[in-house]
């Protein structure tokens, strides 16, 4: 697996930790609530076709926690500044979970820098009667067991001990997740009203066994984003990029290569 280049970039007064690898069209990956502490196999696989850019959000991992960070809208505007500062154009924006929510918030504000949008199990909207699970009441073990469908994989993840540094980063990520998403829980009450503004090609991905964000949200997002496509992975939990890496990479690659806006 090729090693990514690591650097810190300062945008909007906030120093963010950035990893990038590969050549080709830019693919900006926005991580979920667990952060992006590691260069994962799906990133390496995508880096064979794209220039993969993986920042840690302000407030997560090794990035700063800026004074201005209060909500998801702040992160959406931050990433618009970030793409401009890095000179990124025709970006393939890919978000997972909380990162999918940020990606949608970016797209409703300004999609000029975007070529495509991929949302994997995004939070961000709410449908009455369709509630995500309460991740803040999960212990670490419950979280891991609930986030992946394959319990053998969960066992493997649980068998890896956490270092003090990893615990510190987990606490920081949890803190920022609470700040952004505690109330209203995992959504912005105004986002759904403007999803129709998204006109870039959009792919929505969901695991059929997602215990955090109900898979029934897939069609809800598809309905609201004109021309979007929904792809559901079988026997897959909330993290298809981890649990179904091959299918995920194939789906994202095919979608981006097929997109001719």
């Amino acid at each position, binding site marked *: 697996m090729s090693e990514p280049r690591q650097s810190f970039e300062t945008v909007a007064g906030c120093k963010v930790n950035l990893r990038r690898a590969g050549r080709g069209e830019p693919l900006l990956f926005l991580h979920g609530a667990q952060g992006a502490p590691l260069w994962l196999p799906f990133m390496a696989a995508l880096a064979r076709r794209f220039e993969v850019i993986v920042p840690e959000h302000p407030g997560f991992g090794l990035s700063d926690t800026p004074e201005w960070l209060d909500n998801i809208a702040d992160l959406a505007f931050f990433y618009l500044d970030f793409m401009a500062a890095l000179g990124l154009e025709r970006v393939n924006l890919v978000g997972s979970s909380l990162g999918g929510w940020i990606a949608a918030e970016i797209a409703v504000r300004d999609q000029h820098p975007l070529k495509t949008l991929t949302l994997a199990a995004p939070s961000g909207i709410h449908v009455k009667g369709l509630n995500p699970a*309460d991740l*803040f*009441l*999960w*212990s670490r073990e419950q979280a891991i067991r609930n986030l992946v469908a394959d319990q053998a994989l969960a066992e493997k993840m649980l068998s890896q001990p956490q270092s*003090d540094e990893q*615990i*510190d980063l987990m*606490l*920081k990520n*949890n*803190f*920022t*997740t*609470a*700040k952004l998403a*505690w*109330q209203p*829980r995992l959504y912005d009450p105004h986002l759904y009203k403007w999803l129709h503004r998204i006109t870039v090609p959009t792919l929505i991905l969901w695991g059929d066994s997602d215990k955090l964000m109900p898979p029934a949200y897939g069609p809800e997002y598809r309905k609201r984003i004109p021309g979007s496509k929904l792809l559901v992975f079988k026997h897959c939990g909330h993290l298809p990029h981890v649990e179904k890496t091959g299918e995920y990479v194939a789906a994202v690659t095919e979608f981006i290569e097929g997109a001719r806006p």
Partner: protein
Amino acid sequence: MKFYCFHLMPYADLDLDYYKKYDSAWVTLPNSYYDPKKGHILYNRYLDELEYAEEVGFDGVCVNEHHSNAYGLMPVPGVMAGALARRTKRVKIAVLGRALPLINNPLTVAEEFAMIDNITAGRLVAGFVRGIGAEYHSWGVNPAESHDRFHEAHDLIVRGWTETGPFPFEGKYYHFNYVNVWPRPYQQPHPPIWIPSQGSRETIEWAVDPARKYTYLQTFSPVTALARYMQMYRDEAEKRGYTASPMQLGWAVPTYVADTDAEAYREAKPHVENFFNRFLRMPPEMLLPPGYLSLASMKGVMKAKGAMTGGEKTIDELMKVGMFMCGGVDTIVQKFEAYQKQIGFGYLLTALQFGTLPHDLTKKNMKIFGEKVIPRLRHLAEEPAPKAKAV
């Protein structure tokens, strides 16, 4: 010393086997476990007990705010304070406290406290807290905003009490064009403010500030923690150029006293163990939602995790660390005297009912404490209280 009788008003009739089905008596325990007919009896019993505290010689009585649990049945403590305001004549009424970040409009606290203060001609003590972590789950309030909301709500309330209205308040979380609190508090410039805490440097540094000099209360903690935080308060006061009075320090602790050590131990054992193991039971994710503590404090807690989630507690362990004071009259007097001399607190807030302790034992405990313990401890900390605020 001054002596306050602290009450949590638990749902003492709780089916204690609930824990076989639910992991906590907070947040997710169905309220079908609550029987209003039993609740009616309990509320009136508990009010009788606090009224009795005046009769047996306490200086004050304490109520407090908790939500969605069997641990404490006072979601709106002003209701109890209002009931006590008319039935008591002498004791201070300390609301310890209202959980400021949990309240949408903190001005309702300024109003409620001012009303009680007016009715009682200045017998109110105003307590401000952040609430227990579990209550951020129940109330949908963002724990990551807890500290900031607490400080801003406090500023709003104190300004509402002390500045002539109407004036605008321009905060991040609370913004009003016309802050104009009617009624004004009876005590001028405002009622004494007490800050109950489980121990936090940030809270102490804020409370000790010469502009505030708020009484800091250490609640339900081992004696080692009590001593450490009270010393921290005194040290921080010296750093700010003054010596803290004992009346800036208080200790809240469940206590049971009887004629002999053996009798006290025997009578208290099941009830205090129920209190800690059943009524206070909750998983760490419920107790400490992310953001409730600063990142630095949270890291400290995670590293001491073993101590926090150490399973069921016994009366012996609780007595050993001083989280429960229990014994015959002489033992209790000696222990409190030794701790007072070592640690220097001026207020003692004893919870004389806890968990499932029934009415007869609660009254017996209160009577012995009031009549046989208080007179022997009264002379301690006889320094003058901080200069009374001019009327």
